[in-house]
């Protein structure tokens, strides 16, 4: 945590200097996912600009959804120059607080808020998911791949549809098992779902399920240890470590919240706060990508991935994000 000796009673700081703060969602700053990633981005920005943790940059953790607003307000009162809300659940709160504190700059990750003093940072998760879909489609031996989602929602649907599109692009015959755990924190459910899928000869599972995904890794490791040839594709960060020691992480779809956050912080410090704008990070600007750990992917598959990546960046392929877009996309394949 941000441990510091100086006391700041939230009543405004006389010292000059740029200050950036973020409010985590309920996952907390160590969620091995986008909260952590965002914090890493801020830390990097802080260090690069010689800011002190606690006074120059800091995070506030939300234990409940109802904590978002007070946390945002705390930072606004303390006259933070840039206040980041992590996670689309904060959209409404950031909108309200932005209205109340018109002089502060806010940024929201993962969702668009239309306010003059709010920048919206969004990602094209579907594009990154497409790439790992390609990997999955080409790696599977059984022609069966799986997707485990946390809670069925528009955001996670982007992961699902991008992934499906990638699989179908390279392996139209592949079966894709889709299941939502309806829970981001139930490792035992993740494990059970994975167990069911692997039991039905699925051999690659892509998860976008947070802590529930932990169970997917557990199941894969157990199976691999017992001689089954199964894989997991991680999400948000490079999850190669989660697959150890059995080395079941095929690759991961990374979402560079850190670079995005760092970028926006830098812009803001330089006086270029993207006020009222939507800043979109896709494959093109490295906002999403396939993880650098690619040792488990075959050479020819990697070539294919590179090929598709180029096509997406060049706009030759538009990756579907919603169910309707996916239907259209699937039709276009035939």
């Amino acid at each position, binding site marked *: *945590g*941000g*441990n*510091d*000796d*100086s*006391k*700041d*009673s*939230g*009543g405004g700081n006389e010292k000059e200097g740029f200050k950036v703060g973020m409010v985590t969602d309920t996952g907390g700053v160590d969620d091995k996912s986008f909260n952590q990633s965002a914090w890493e981005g801020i830390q990097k920005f802080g260090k690069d600009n010689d800011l002190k943790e*606690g006074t120059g940059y*800091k995070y*506030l*953790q939300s*234990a*409940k*959804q*109802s*904590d978002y*607003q*007070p*946390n945002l*307000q*705390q930072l606004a*009162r*303390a006259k933070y120059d840039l206040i980041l809300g992590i996670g*689309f*659940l904060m*959209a*409404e709160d950031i909108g309200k*607080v932005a209205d*109340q504190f018109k002089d502060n700059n806010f940024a929201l990750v993962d*969702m668009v808020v239309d306010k003059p003093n709010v920048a919206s940072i969004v990602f094209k998760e579907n594009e990154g998911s497409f790439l790992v879909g390609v990997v999955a489609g080409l790696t599977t031996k059984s022609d069966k791949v799986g997707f485990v989602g*946390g*809670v*069925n*929602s*528009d*955001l996670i649907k982007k992961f699902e549809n991008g992934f499906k599109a990638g699989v179908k692009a390279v392996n139209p015959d592949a079966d894709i098992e889709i299941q939502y755990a*309806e*829970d*981001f*924190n139930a490792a035992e459910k993740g494990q059970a779902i994975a167990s069911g899928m692997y039991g039905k000869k699925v051999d690659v599972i892509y998860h976008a399920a947070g802590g529930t995904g932990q169970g997917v890794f557990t199941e894969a490791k157990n199976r691999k240890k017992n001689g089954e040839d199964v894989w997991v594709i991680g999400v948000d960060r490079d999850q190669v470590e989660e697959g150890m020691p059995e080395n079941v992480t095929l690759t991961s779809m990374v979402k560079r919240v850190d670079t995005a956050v760092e970028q926006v912080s830098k812009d803001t410090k330089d006086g270029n706060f993207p006020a009222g704008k939507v800043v979109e990070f896709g494959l093109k600007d490295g906002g999403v990508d396939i993880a650098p750990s690619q040792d488990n992917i075959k050479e020819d598959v990697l070539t294919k991935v590179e090929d598709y990546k180029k096509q997406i960046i060049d706009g030759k392929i538009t990756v579907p994000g919603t169910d309707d877009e996916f239907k259209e996309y699937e039709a276009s394949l035939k």
Partner: protein
Amino acid sequence: MKLERFYGILIPILSIILGMVVGAIVMLAGGYNPIDGFDQLFYGIFGEPYSIGETLRAAAPLIFAGLAVAFAFRTGLFNIGVEGQVLVGWMVAVWIGIEFDLPTAIHLPLALIGAGLAGALWASIPGILKAKFHVHEVITSIMMNYIALYVTNDILRHVIGIENERTESVKESASLASPFLQELTDFSRLHNGIFIAVLAALVFWFILWKTTLGYELRAVGFNKSAAEYAGMGVNKNIVLSFVISGVFAGLAGAMEGLGTFQNMTLNASFTGVGFDGIAVALLGANNPIGVVLAALLFAGLNIGGLSMQQIGIPPELIKIIIAFIIIFVASGYAIRLLIEKFTVKKTEAKKVKGADK
């Protein structure tokens, strides 16, 4: 009798102090300065109109949840299902708030009544099962919590409609928000719900200690056989108690749906309001004033705890402090013994002298 009242006040106060002492020790052990920590905590509770507003805002659902648990307790039942009843109440409140277009005078009451009824309906199931089949209410209410979680999510998705995992906001005519209170408290989310919550505490007291129904409910809670002997419908009262408890719980949901959030989000896990309600009820000794005070304490510590993060103290500390406060209150007997030991020693010394003569 006077002595009882004295201890009734002394023990909670001592417990709060002792809980803070434990908190200080933990802070020291964790390498934080407890004086700064408490300074920040109290500033976060009382420092500004804003924090007071937020504390009151956070207290409203806790009061309702606490009343819900306490009401059932008073009649000998453990409603551990408040969490689920909060969810359905929240959902129905929001649904009515979105779906209808009515003048405030009708819309808001309708949304509140809807929430209360939804909670009541949900709570009636463990009640009926207990009354009819003697199924232990603790299991059924735990199960009903999970069912509520999944069912509300499903209804949000497929009936009410969501965008980005949340419903649209309730119409202004159904909202508890009060621009006046917000302005007064410097943009806190304080809403009119707090008044309803305090009113509810009054209603709680009135039902149990002033009405004929309350006489019956308490009798059933104390001694089922005697209640049956006296011609009270024991089963009816069990269900009724759950239903009333559920109304309070449903309204706790309405506080969130029509007050704090003005909408409802898909829930990946429980809100925690119901479980906190258990602690609030027990800390408040299942009596309405106690519940209100306990809810304020809870809310204050939680809100104040948020600002402890300003100096890097993790918010978990608040949980530890609250837990110890509850443990100390529960151990009131030990505190009493200690106090009495001091006083009795003196009188005994006198007695011995008297015996010598």
